[in-house]
């Protein structure tokens, strides 16, 4: 090909060809020594995808680390991590790219060991086809079952069964046919509808990229021929338009667009849409892209929609065809693959991410565990690493969804640990539960620990005491604001919201003051029992009542904060004009004037408001609170 030829024309032609090529994403899996990496290396080699320097590096590596007596060890091409080369195993998925004249391929080479199942699932979740390797000498193994099960679970509909190492069984047809029959039975059980079996030798190159002379009895295609021609397209989805809102685009007051990727159906300007879960309706005004407005957007397009009406829409909402909306629910039956060292416990709150939405979810019941090696259903109270369970799920917000079998994008979810931020599970929604079906909670007493756990916090009572005008409420207000911003559930009790209601019948005599504090203390106790962090901002002048309040709470749950402002400063501030009135005799029994204030002897925290800014004081309160919680882990992990 002469470079002096019209390169632009040649490239345009090539582009056309390259662009019309379809893309096949597949995984290779199988048990440890079945030769996955060797097969993949052989494919890259046979399709001339190896560059000279990579080949030179491979020759060097084969001599140093190879297992083929110095001959090219193709496994070294794909096992990219040092630890993998040292141990001769695959730990994590490696993505490889190659193309032929027919197709482009992305291969995810998946680890075989059970302990790396989560990495295999990572690779399988985006694949259309799985190449499952079986050693002809060994037949189906536990790993074969496990991998096929995971493929079925994640909705892979096509399996290419590669019966490898045929050279070691003298290319015998009977061996191959027996394994093929066994596997077809297995695949049917696991819900994998399409199986193609091919006998091959990755090491010798038999039936890898071209038909082998050694196995004339086999009339099917080579592995590469099958990969180039297999049709994996799913039946056209009957679903209407769906687009999870990913980002709200507001460059100026005049433009409000909703950016996202269309995950089902198609849309055109003028089409009626509904925004879920809220259920508000509108019409699409424009489909905006940097390349100009579109007349229609379809499945897979990343676009920005504008609507005919101003609506309150944010990230996580789903814009859908008004005529065919998805369901909205907050309780589900789902399959869950557990991927964390710490076991799944029903009742514990986790983050759940689905589409562009993140909510809090709990597993309310494990209906059964599936043994991934035998597919037997077992009763379970927890799920351990790499176990699969069929569970009921309860979310704190309703979401728009589709069953996973209908739509991966609106039916797949991950769970994230709220403390470690680790991705701890992958799940597929099956169907929505009606609320009544799910009232039954397994293994879970609703007690204070359970209520605290659902909030993901440790309840406590912060008791602010000090003279009128000392700054109690100012500090308590700021503390509450900050705790709220940090995601804690709080409630602030002060004279304003208690004396006007619950304690409306009480005056300011000594008896009434005692009763006032007793009631406030009891209410605080109930709130702490409910799992809240309660802030009490009351003058509470008497030691004995504060001691009574403290006695209602568990060890470390009650923190006394003495807002220590001298009387003359309070009187000078006099924010409500009360000191002036008390001095004038208009108010009786006013603390500090004609009623005593008994300063705390041993408060958890003493705040001096005269020289320190209020935000520093609030921060000290929060630090004291959080420090006290670290000393006493209450929520079992």
């Amino acid at each position, binding site marked *: *090909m002469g*470079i002096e030829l019209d*390169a*632009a024309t040649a*490239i345009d032609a090539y*582009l056309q060809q*390259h*662009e*019309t*090529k*379809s*893309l096949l994403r597949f995984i290779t899996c199988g048990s440890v020594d079945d030769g996955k990496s060797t097969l993949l290396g052989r494919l890259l080699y046979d399709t001339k995808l190896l*560059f*000279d*320097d*990579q080949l030179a590096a491979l020759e060097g*590596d084969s001599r140093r680390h190879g297992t083929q007596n110095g001959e090219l060890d193709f496994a070294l091409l*794909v096992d*990219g*991590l*040092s*630890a993998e080369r040292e141990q001769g195993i695959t*730990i*994590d*998925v*490696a*993505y*490889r790219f190659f193309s032929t004249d027919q197709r*482009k391929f992305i291969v995810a080479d998946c680890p075989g060991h059970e302990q790396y199942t*989560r990495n295999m*699932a*990572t690779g399988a*979740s*985006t694949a259309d086809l799985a190449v499952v390797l079986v050693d002809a000498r060994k037949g189906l193994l536990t790993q074969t079952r496990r991998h096929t099960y995971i493929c079925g679970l994640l909705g892979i509909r096509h399996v290419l069964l590669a019966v490898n190492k045929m050279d070691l069984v003298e290319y015998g047809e009977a061996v191959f046919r027996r394994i093929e029959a066994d596997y077809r039975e297995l695949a049917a059980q696991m819900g994998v509808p399409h199986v193609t079996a091919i006998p091959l030798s990755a090491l010798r190159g038999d039936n890898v990229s071209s038909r082998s002379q050694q196995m004339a009895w086999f009339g099917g295609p080579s592995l590469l021929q099958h990969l180039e021609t297999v049709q994996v397209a799913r039946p056209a989805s009957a679903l209407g338009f769906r687009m999870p809102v*990913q*980002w709200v*685009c507001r*460059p100026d007051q005049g*433009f409000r*667009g909703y*950016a*996202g*990727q269309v995950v089902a159906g198609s849309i055109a300007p003028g089409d009626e849409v509904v925004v879920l879960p809220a259920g508000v309706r509108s019409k699409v005004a424009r489909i905006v892209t*940097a*390349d100009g407005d579109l007349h229609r957007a379809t499945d*897979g*397009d*990343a676009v920005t929609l504008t609507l005919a009406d101003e609506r309150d829409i944010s990230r996580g909402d789903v814009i859908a065809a008004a005529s065919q909306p998805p369901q909205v629910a907050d309780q589900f039956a789902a399959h869950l693959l557990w*991927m964390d060292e710490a076991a799944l416990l029903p009742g514990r709150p986790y*983050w759940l*991410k*689905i589409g*562009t939405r993140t909510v809090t979810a709990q597993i309310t019941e494990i209906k059964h565990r599936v043994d991934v090696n035998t597919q037997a259903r077992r009763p379970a109270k927890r799920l351990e690493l790499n176990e699969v369970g069929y569970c009921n799920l309860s979310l704190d917000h309703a979401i728009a969804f589709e069953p996973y079998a209908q739509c991966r*994008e609106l039916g*797949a979810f*991950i769970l*994230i640990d709220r403390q470690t*931020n*680790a*991705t701890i599970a992958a799940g597929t929604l099956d169907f929505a539960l009606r609320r009544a079906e799910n009232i039954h909670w397994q293994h879970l007493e609703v007690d204070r620990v359970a209520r605290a756990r659902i909030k993901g916090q440790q309840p406590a009572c912060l008791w602010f005491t000090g003279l009128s005008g000392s700054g109690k409420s100012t500090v308590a207000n700021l503390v509450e604001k900050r705790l709220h911003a940090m995601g804690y559930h709080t409630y602030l009790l002060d004279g304003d919201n208690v004396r006007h209601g619950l304690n409306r019948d009480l005056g300011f005599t000594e008896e009434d003051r005692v009763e006032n504090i007793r009631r406030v203390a009891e209410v605080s106790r109930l709130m702490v029992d409910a799992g809240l962090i309660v802030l009490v901002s009351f003058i509470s002048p008497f030691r004995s009542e504060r001691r009574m309040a403290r006695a209602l709470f568990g060890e470390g749950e009650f923190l006394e904060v003495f807002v220590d402002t001298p009387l003359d400063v309070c009187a000078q501030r006099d924010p409500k004009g009360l000191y002036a009135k008390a001095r004038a005799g208009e108010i009786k029994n006013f603390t500090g004037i004609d009623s005593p204030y008994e300063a705390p002897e041993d408060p958890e925290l003493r705040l001096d408001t005269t020289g320190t800014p209020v935000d520093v004081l609030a921060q000290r309160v929060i630090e004291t609170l959080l420090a006290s919680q670290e000393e006493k882990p209450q929520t079992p992990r």
Partner: protein
Amino acid sequence: MMIDRDSGLRALEAESIRVIREVASEFANPVFLYSIGKDSSVLLHLLYKAFYPASPPIPLLHVDTTWKFREMISFRDRRSREMGCRLLVHTNEDGVRQGVGPFTHGSAVHTDVMKTQALKQALDKYKFDAAIGGARRDEEKSRAKERVFSFRNAQHRWDPKNQRPELWSLYNARVHKGESVRVFPLSNWTELDIWLYIYREKIEVPSLYLAKERPVVERDGMLIMVDDARMPLFPGETPLMRRVRFRTLGCYPLTGAIESEADTLPKVIQEMLVARTSERQGRVIDQDSWASMEKKKQEGYF
């Protein structure tokens, strides 16, 4: 010219735009590590598309080792301005004071001090919780193993043996204070995809990618361009004008040129289709040891 809406390139484009939007939505303080090369040029273009008609809400950060090709720096300043992006430039001033450079300290020390350490300094200084980069899985073996959202601990280290599972397009963006995520929107692109996309979308790239007469010396089997007077010449070395281009761009003393007649994009693509060496071969750092990239990445290199 708009790319064919059914093409593989369009699917890659949509996937990358989705990843970029996810970063803007999920992180408080993200940054785009702009390295001026072809992959960064594609990313910049995608950044523009992802947020259109708004300006990209993510600033650009360039870690300047002070040894980049001069053309790269002027290109950087102009393109970031044209795209309406905020540009931050960081240089390891400690390294500058100590006079660290590739000729005096070797490629390993230079790369560590002026790139890896400099990058960590910048990430710490601005407290970024996400950094978008242009790496692709087809570049190199340890990159082939990396997630799209790749978690880094507070010391910026990558733990390849314990990566977060990453299923479907559900990216986990949650980090504690000090931790961060490196995000690679071009993970599933190949070098060919990059060039075809540049051609189709008419994306501007530095002219160093196109063949031209340039002053080079041959050293350790590589053609090094004499980009400024700081390059010491050994006895017997005389810069010769040769027709060369670059397949990757980095520090000029560490970036090997190839002899080429490809002075237009179509010719570059055509040459690449018959090329028999992978693009990273032009980088000195990769040849230090066979696991060098994995090691550097664990230490915080991009």
